[in-house]
Each structure stands twice: as C-alpha cells, then as structure tokens.
C-alpha cells in the first residue's frame, strides 16, 4: 500500500469527516445510538457496505452505462445491504431486532451513494476501497462515540454491563434524557462545534 492510498483512508478523519463536515448519512445513524452495542453493529455494517460497494462499482466503472448508473449503484448497494441484514438476522438476532428498519435504511444513506458517485466511478479498485474504508471508519467513529456517551450517561451501562453503580451510592443519577432522540441531535451539534472551533 503506497502513501496515496493511505491518504485516502486518513483524509476523511482530518478535515473531511463524513458526518460533521459533509453532513451526509446522518439519517440512519442517530436512531441506533441510544446504546453502544447497536451503534457498533451499525458502524460495522455501514463500513462494510461502503467498502464493498466502492470496490464493486470501481471494478464495473468502465462498463456501466452513464444513463443507468444511479440504478446500477442502487442495485449493488441494496444487494449488499440485504446480505448484511441476512447475516445479522442469522448470527446476531438480538442486535438485528434492535436495528429493525435502520439496516434497510443504509441503502438510502447518502454517504454510501455519495462515495460511489464522487469517487468509485472514476478511480481504480484499491484507492476506492481505501476511500470507502476511510469514510466508513470516520462515520463509525462518530456513531460509536455517540453510542458510548448516550449509554454511559443515560443508562449507566456500557454494552449492557453496569458501570456507574458505585457512583449511585454517593448521589449520582442517570440522565434519562440522553436516551431520547433529541439528545442525539444536540450531541452532534456540540461535536460539530468542538471540531469547528479546533479548526479555526
């Protein structure tokens, strides 16, 4: 792997983070961040779909007729998402119940389609895979960070295991609001604030 490919992986991390800066793909991610476990599974699923669809589209890029390229991308992405859903249902049944419809919504996740259209259509397979990985990991980082914060502060647990039990004896209380949907939005807002002010 040369430096250029490595750059594609690290680029989305520094100043091009898929969620905070490009503001793509937020739709399907927030609803599953109330707990760490579904957030991690969602992150892995999205990363897998981004990497594989980038790879497939990049391999096919010279054969795809431009007029039907969006449909071709949709078919590839939705096939991969169905595969992910099937695997989750077969091997991680409890998680797949928690993720419910949100696995299906990876299809309309702007980040996946966005990378296909912007990168994989014009680049060879290896850089495309790196680009997909970089973007997927950037996305994962935010999902997991949110899942971590919300479960820890909202429920006092991590991955289902109690963490803050001792603190309750000295008067610590869980903040139930953290588990509610609006807090995900507010946390993202704060995160963008932090990242933007560090850049400035």
């Amino acid at each position: 792997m040369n430096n250029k490919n490595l750059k594609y992986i690290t680029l989305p991390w520094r100043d091009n983070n898929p969620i905070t800066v490009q503001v793509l793909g937020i739709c399907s991610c927030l609803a599953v961040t109330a707990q760490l476990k579904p957030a991690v599974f969602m992150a892995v699923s999205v990363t897998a779909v981004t990497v594989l669809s980038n790879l497939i589209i990049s391999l096919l890029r010279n054969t795809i007729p431009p007029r039907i390229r969006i449909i071709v991308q949709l078919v590839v992405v939705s096939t991969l998402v169905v595969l992910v859903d099937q695997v989750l249902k077969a091997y991680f049944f409890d998680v797949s119940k928690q993720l419910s419809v949100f696995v299906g919504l990876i299809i309309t996740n702007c980040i996946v389609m966005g990378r296909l259209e912007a990168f994989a259509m014009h680049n060879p397979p290896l850089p495309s895979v790196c680009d997909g990985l970089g973007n997927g990991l950037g996305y994962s980082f935010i999902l997991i960070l949110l899942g971590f914060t919300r479960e820890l502060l909202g429920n006092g647990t991590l991955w289902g295991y109690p963490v803050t039990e001792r603190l309750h004896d000295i008067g610590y209380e869980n903040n139930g609001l953290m588990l509610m949907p609006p807090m995900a939005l507010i946390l993202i807002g704060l995160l963008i604030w932090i990242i933007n002010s560090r850049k400035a």
Partner: protein
Amino acid sequence: MEYINILVKSIFVDNMIFAFFLGMCSYLAVSKTVKTSAGLGIAVTFVLCITVPVNYLINKYLLKAGALAWISPSLAGVDLGFLSFIVFIAVIAAIVQIVEMVVERYSPALYNSLGIFLPLIAVNCAVMGGSLFMQERAYSNIAQAEVFALGSGIGWFLAIVAIAALREKLRYSHIPPALKGVGITFIITGLMGMAFMAFMGIKL
C-alpha cells in the same frame, strides 16, 4: 377512530425527523428558506402517499411469507421477504421517475415548483423509511397504510418548514462562528424534538 389514531401518531409522536431522523440530508440541505422547504415537504408527502400503498400491495401479494398463495397454493411456503429492501427501493426510484414525467407532461406549473426536488427524493430516507415502517408495523389494510404515509409526510413537511422559518431568523442572530450553519441547526432540531416529545404522552 383508528385512522385518526394512526394519523396523529405518525405526524407528532413518530415524526420522521424528530423521532427517527429520517430524511436529514435534504432536511439540512434545503431548509434555508421557507418557500423551497415547503416545496420539498409537499413533494415528499406526495411521493410517500404513492409509494407506501404501492409497496404495501407488493409486500402483501408478493413478498410476505405465504403471500404467493393466491397464485397457487403450492407457493404458500415461499417467503420472499429477504427481497423487500431491493424491491422497495426499485419501486420508489421508478415511481419518482414516473411522477416526474407525468407532472412535467400534464402540469408544467406544478413541475416548475416541485420538479427540481423530485430527483432528490428517490434517495430520501424518509420515503424509504415510510415503506419499511409500513412493512414492520404490519398495517391491516391499505387505507391504514395510506393514512400512515400521509401522516408521515405531513410530519416531515411541518418539521422542515418550521426549521426553515427558524433558520431565516437565525441569520440575524449572534451565534458563535464555529456553531454557525449546520451545528446550530442540529441543536435547534434537538430542541424542537424535545418539544415534540410532549406528544408522546398523548392519550388516544
């Protein structure tokens, strides 16, 4: 009564934006002025009202476990449920395309106001989400599915118009520079979502 129930629930309690964050991409991108966001809101409602019932029929007569029994009893054991994602997105993309062509042909005035939004809608999570929720919640007849689609659309419309109105005012307020734009929009959406949570306790 049941229909009012579904309508109220899908507009306020299960609001696509505030409770499920569906359609955030276009919600953030197109909510700069009230006029355009109202146009997008109407377009989303319109497409939801067409795609959800169509997908309902497809799910009921083609995809569900045992749904093929009406063709021949020997097919009763077939479960094509695993194809639903791919079929739903294909139906949505096709319908959006058809709607665009029909509207352009028969109502140029409507096309001028809605047309630019239609291509955006095929990949709008709210539309796909509408079909997936319809499948998951197993509405007992097509009228319920239609009411649910209408309610979700109206809920989305309300959310985007409200945030656009706020953003128009926000332009003249003092916000920390790093928070301007997307950041403050997220936080305001969160606060609006909290207000909508008041509907959760609604007794029907």
